[in-house]
């Protein structure tokens, strides 16, 4: 019903020009059809200068458009006069009228009516492009249509809404560049995108094409509106069943193709879901093909069985003539001859009969025993295995057979034998004496059969070839079709049965694309599908668009929990902090470089199809995180330079800041002194010994020092605490954006501020002490340097130790104040938010309807709460109202108490937790040190002569290299990764991230195309 201008591109953007042309989107009503919920649009216009560019859907005739105050009462328009109908008159309706020519693009002045009422101001977040839109209301009388625009400020925003229950023309004004989601300015990485609940009205005729188009685009996630309806009572269950039937046929065809040892080629090109009428064609084609295949297959089977029988027969006959059997025969005969020929014996006239046949080998012993038992030994059975296995007629696999020849006396026994062989499913063949000729005939028969069989198989392969061509595209198409019907099954029917109503989640940014897709796909039907936002009480799904770089970082965050809707997304910060914290634990130039190069190789080769096609799960994991690895390697190189370690060796890029020569000269180390002392101390207080700090990182001379480890430990421990406190404080600060965004400003004051004070007052002060001591205490007064640890403990005990010199004057006062301040924050944190909420709740209850009335008046609608604008501000407001209605004091207090305890205790334990940075980096450094000392150094010291050293070094270096990769890169890398992950998930994200959302999973054909 709703048409949008076709020449989208020609509409000038209202942002840049003084004259801000608007698109007037005409929408018409088909008889009997009505929109139940609201339709909305927004537009920007400047007062007095508005100019409407009118365009409309092509197939509809454009006639006079003249709504006046004296227009006739509403009539039901006929199809061809759709647009020629008048808007219902209303005293509050701006006299909007004009004449539309037979083409799009006409413009005429837009009269601006005085505003009805000023509404709420303030833009929702993410809509900053619209400066304080003040909404006003315009509503129709006969209908409940309305529009709002702002008379103040420039440019203004005009919002229009219509709610129609009658048949008349509908008007939507929509600005060129300011459509639904285009005011979005904020980067979508920082929080999840605005996702709107969009109601789609799909005219029954066009519903299929629309949904199939949506499936191609993958824009929207359908909500199941028929959750209470069981699977077989849904509307399109018949179509789904037809698709399933077809899929069954496909499975049959596929199995046949695979059985013939052929492969199905992957489908080529774009294969849209076929229109429903094509299903018949596909069905017919596949059915015919399947039938043909079945026939040919059946023929082939029958022929094969026949051939098999013939071969068996020949084999059985052959056995009858084998010398072994002949021997048995004569032997048996000679044994019995005297008995049988006893004079007057009753068996004189009996002659020996034969039953010959073949049986599967595993049944043979049972058969033999049963025969013997049942016939009490009145037979002679001989079993022989076939020399060469025959092809099984069905599976085609070689199978051996046991042939048997039973000779017996007496008709009764014969019947029994026949019954028994029947029950064992033996193949029984006539066996007569004069079989020589018969064998030759059999040979010929089987040859003929083989020829026929060859012919049949040729035909079969032809049919299979056709299947190979037809099947892959048809499979994809039917899969898509089924997906479409399953999606349609989630839609509900409108009361008039003219259209299907679907509720979908769609990113606000994609709304224009959605509109366009709907318009395009419903164009042919002459009626247009409509999409419009409706307010939702449910939390929308989270959508964060990623690219190949950010995907792995987002993956790290999502593995913890998908963010709540529009919550601050930690992923952008993780891009920096994760590789950095990893690198703090993994600092080594050599190892970092190896990792970097490995990741770089993957990144450079990422477009090769072989890379993506690799099935190995471990490889896929690495490949998926290639950019993460790249950054981790890079940062490790950086921290490696800071630690001055490359495969545990220090490098001296710059000259060392320490001078041994100066020390030796000043303190006059004699040769004897040097010979006696293996350890020498460099005293920085001696002039010329310590020339100044090393320009970058750790001085390489430390790697020679015996107290290397204690020096590094002190450094790394303090560094861990500093990084930890900064990281956590950053997390708390990020919470500010959440509070601002969700309009919970009270939490800024009552939660974030106390939290920050607590964290920084105690642990921030510790960081301050560390840095202060680094800056103020130098080697000259090192002997009497104050201990930070003692100071920090004393700070909480409000005491002081006389031996520990204060760092700065009045230190105790400052410390006492800080502790008191931090402790004072605990009750604020504990009680602030609950008390505030309770207070506000009580105030609301005192005047419960005030705001509602406001809103209703503003919109000029009776039930405004159902049909609010859909701007975030109001939605949030609505939700808040809801929450407050169900405010349970005990729950709020409990929740806040848990939060407070968790935060305050967490500050201590989390700070301690960051010490893992120190521990892991220590472990890494020591492991690589050990590896070097125990492998390479020994290897290098082994051979004095060049030749020996070279030979020895090859295996030793190989060991070193393998162990470096296996232990230091893979194992240590994994453990450092794990710890970095934990620091992010637990210590960082619990400061602000709830992660209780769910992902937007759009309806898409991507799975069907595989």
């Amino acid at each position, binding site marked *: 019903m709703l048409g949008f201008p076709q020449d989208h591109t020609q509409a000038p953007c209202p942002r840049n020009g003084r004259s801000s042309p608007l698109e007037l989107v005409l929408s018409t009503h088909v008889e009997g059809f009505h929109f139940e919920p609201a339709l909305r649009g927004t537009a920007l216009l400047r007062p007095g200068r508005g100019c409407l560019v009118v365009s409309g859907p092509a197939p509809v005739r454009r006639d006079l458009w003249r709504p006046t105050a004296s227009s006739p009462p509403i009539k039901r328009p006929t199809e061809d006069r759709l647009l020629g109908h008048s808007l219902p008159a209303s005293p509050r309706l701006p006299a909007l009228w004009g004449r539309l020519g037979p083409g799009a693009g006409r413009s005429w002045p837009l009269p601006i009516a005085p505003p009805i009422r000023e509404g709420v101001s303030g833009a929702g977040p993410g809509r900053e492009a619209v400066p304080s839109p003040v909404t006003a209301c315009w509503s129709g009388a006969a209908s409940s249509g309305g529009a709002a625009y702002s008379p103040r400020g420039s440019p203004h925003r005009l919002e229009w809404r219509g709610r129609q229950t009658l048949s008349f023309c509908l008007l939507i004004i929509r600005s060129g560049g300011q459509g639904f989601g285009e005011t979005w300015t904020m980067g979508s990485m920082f929080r999840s995108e605005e996702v709107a609940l969009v109601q789609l009205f799909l005219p029954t005729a066009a519903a299929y094409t629309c949904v199939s188009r949506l499936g191609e685009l993958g824009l929207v996630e359908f909500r199941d509106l028929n959750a209470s309806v*069981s*699977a*077989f009572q849904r509307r399109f*269950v018949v179509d789904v*069943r037809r698709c399933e039937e077809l899929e*069954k046929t496909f499975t049959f065809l596929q199995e046949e193709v695979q059985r013939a040892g052929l492969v199905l080629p992957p489908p080529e090109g774009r294969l849209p879901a076929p229109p429903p009428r094509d299903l018949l064609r596909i069905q017919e084609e596949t059915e015919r093909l399947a039938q043909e295949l079945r026939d040919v297959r059946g023929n082939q089977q029958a022929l094969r069985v026949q051939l098999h029988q013939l071969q068996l027969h020949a084999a059985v006959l052959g056995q009858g003539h084998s010398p072994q059997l002949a021997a048995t025969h004569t032997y048996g005969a000679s044994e019995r001859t005297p008995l049988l020929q006893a004079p007057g014996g009753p068996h004189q006239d009996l002659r020996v009969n034969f039953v010959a046949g073949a049986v599967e080998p595993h*049944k043979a012993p*049972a058969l033999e*025993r*049963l025969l013997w*038992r*049942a016939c009490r030994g009145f037979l002679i059975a001989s079993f022989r295995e076939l020399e060469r296995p025959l092809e099984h007629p069905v599976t085609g696999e070689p199978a051996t057979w046991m042939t048997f020849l039973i000779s017996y006396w007496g008709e009764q026994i014969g019947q*029994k034998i026949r*019954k*028994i062989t*029947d*029950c*064992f499913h033996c193949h029984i063949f006539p066996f007569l004496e004069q079989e020589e000729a018969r064998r030759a005939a059999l040979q010929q028969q089987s040859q003929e059969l083989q020829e026929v069989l060859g012919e049949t198989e040729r035909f079969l392969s032809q049919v299979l070839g056709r299947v190979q061509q037809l099947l892959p595209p048809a499979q994809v198409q039917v899969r898509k079709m089924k997906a479409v019907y399953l999606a349609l099954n989630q839609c509900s029917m409108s009361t008039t049965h003219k259209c299907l109503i679907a509720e979908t989640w769609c990113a606000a940014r994609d709304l224009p694309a959605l509109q366009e897709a709907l318009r395009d796909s419903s164009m042919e039907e002459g009626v247009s599908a409509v999409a419009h936002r409706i307010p939702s009480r449910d939390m929308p799904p989270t959508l964060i668009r990623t690219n190949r770089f950010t995907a792995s970082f987002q993956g790290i965050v999502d593995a913890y929990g998908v963010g709540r809707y529009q919550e601050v997304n930690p992923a952008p910060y993780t891009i920096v902090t994760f590789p950095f914290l990893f690198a703090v634990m993994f600092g080594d130039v050599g190892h970092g470089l190896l990792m970097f190069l490995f990741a770089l190789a993957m990144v450079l080769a990422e477009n090769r199809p072989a890379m993506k096609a690799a099935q190995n799960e471990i490889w896929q994991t690495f490949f998926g995180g290639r950019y993460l690895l790249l950054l981790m390697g890079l940062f490790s190189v950086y921290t490696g330079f800071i630690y001055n370690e490359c495969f545990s060796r220090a490098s001296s890029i710059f000259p060392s800041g320490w001078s041994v020569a100066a020390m030796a000269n000043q303190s006059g180390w004699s040769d004897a002194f040097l010979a006696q002392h293996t350890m020498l101390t460099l005293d920085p207080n001696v002039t010329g010994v310590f020339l100044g700090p090393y320009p970058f990182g750790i001085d390489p001379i430390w790697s020679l020092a015996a107290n290397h480890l204690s020096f590094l430990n002190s450094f790394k421990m303090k560094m861990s605490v500093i990084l930890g406190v900064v990281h956590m404080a950053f997390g708390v600060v990020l919470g500010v954006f959440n509070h601002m965004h969700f309009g919970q400003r009270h939490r800024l004051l009552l939660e974030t501020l106390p939290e920050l004070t607590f964290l920084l007052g105690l642990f921030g002060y510790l960081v301050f002490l560390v840095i202060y001591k680094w800056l103020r205490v130098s080697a000259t007064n090192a002997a009497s340097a104050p201990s930070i640890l003692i100071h920090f403990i004393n700070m909480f005990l409000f005491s002081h130790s006389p031996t520990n010199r204060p760092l700065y004057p009045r230190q105790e006062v400052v410390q006492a104040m800080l502790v008191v301040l931090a402790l004072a924050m605990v009750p604020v944190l504990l009680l602030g938010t609950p008390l505030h909420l309770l207070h506000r709740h009580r105030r609301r209850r005192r005047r419960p309807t005030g705001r509602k009335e406001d809103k209703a008046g503003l919109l000029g609608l009776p039930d405004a709460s159902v049909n609010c604008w859909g701007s975030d501000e109001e939605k949030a407001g609505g939700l808040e109202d809801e929450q407050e209605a169900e405010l349970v004091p005990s729950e709020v207090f409990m929740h806040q108490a848990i939060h407070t305890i968790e935060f305050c205790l967490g500050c201590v334990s989390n700070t301690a937790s960051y010490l893992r940075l120190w521990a892991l980096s220590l472990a890494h450094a020591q492991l690589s040190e050990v590896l070097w000392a125990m492998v390479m150094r020994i290897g290098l010291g082994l051979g004095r002569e060049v030749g020996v050293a070279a030979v020895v070094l090859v295996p030793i270096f190989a060991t070193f290299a393998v162990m470096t990769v296996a232990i230091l890169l893979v194992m240590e890398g994994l453990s450092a990764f794990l710890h970095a992950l934990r620091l992010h998930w637990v210590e960082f994200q619990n400061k602000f991230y709830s992660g209780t959302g769910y992902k937007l999973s759009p309806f898409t054909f991507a799975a069907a195309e595989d």
Partner: protein
Amino acid sequence: MLEGAELYFNVDHGYLEGLVRGCKASLLTQQDYINLVQCETLEDLKIHLQTTDYGNFLANQTNPLTVSKIDTEMRKRLCGEFEYFRNHSLEPLSTFLTYMTCSYMIDNVILLMNGALQKKSVKEILVKCHPLGRFTEMEAVNIAETPSDLFNAILVETPLAPFFQDCMSENALDELNIELLRNKLYKSYLETFYKFCKNHGDVTAEVMCPILEFEADRRAFIITLNSFGTELSKEDRETLYPAFGKLYPEGLRLLAQAEDFDQMKTIADHYEVYKPLFEAIGGNGGKTLEDVFYEREVQMNVLAFNRQFHYGVFYAYVKLKEQEMRNIVWIAECISQRHRTKINSYIPIL
């Protein structure tokens, strides 16, 4: 057997027990039955069964769907599961599973012999045979003319052989004799199975013995009920009762003398287990004796799952699954015959 199955049971049978418990969890729930009952056609039934653990087991069936097709497919499924258990079982569980198949084998043999008597072709009868009780020599049954013939020639190698000691006779196999043969075989089978479970001891005995005792008593009741008004003498009747169970020996002696249903009921009233069952007959929904016995059986089988480390779960699972299949077939029959008034009288599995 050593006591304390929990110490070593899982070494050999832990996997299968876990498996069978998983299978038990896939039995249809009350909600499933409610949905099944609402189905209008067998196609609906099929679609609904697809949403359960049956999956699309009917997918390859050509239309039109019939009740017997559903039944066959369900049996095939059960048989497949059972074969899997059996192939992965170790002693003594494998013997236990063999014992379980024996009852089906007896049924099949009797069915085939009856068929032979009525001159029906073997193939026709074979379709009706339960797949769990299939064995190679089965089809040769019709060559036997007397029970000892049957034993000597055909069944001597099958697991059924030990049950023949009591019923070796040279009588020709007419309808009555076949029925007698069946009951004697059953009696012998149940007694042997009972002895096996009893000797196994431990939880298996604690769980299986009551179930088998109930089975024996049920047979006694059913035999009595069916023998009213036939030429079967009271002495002969007594020889058919399995010689164990709650009724053994006094109850059985009394049952042998019973002459009508009311007398049977008075005998049952002496036993607190059977009194409520007989009282429930004809109650709400017009239950038959068979129904109440089935309900009681289901109850006992479900309870078997409350204990761990025993073989009874296998028996109970197969019986429950059988009951479920009977229920589905009942519902399917009601649907296909448009006889919806009785559709709700399936036996609910708790």
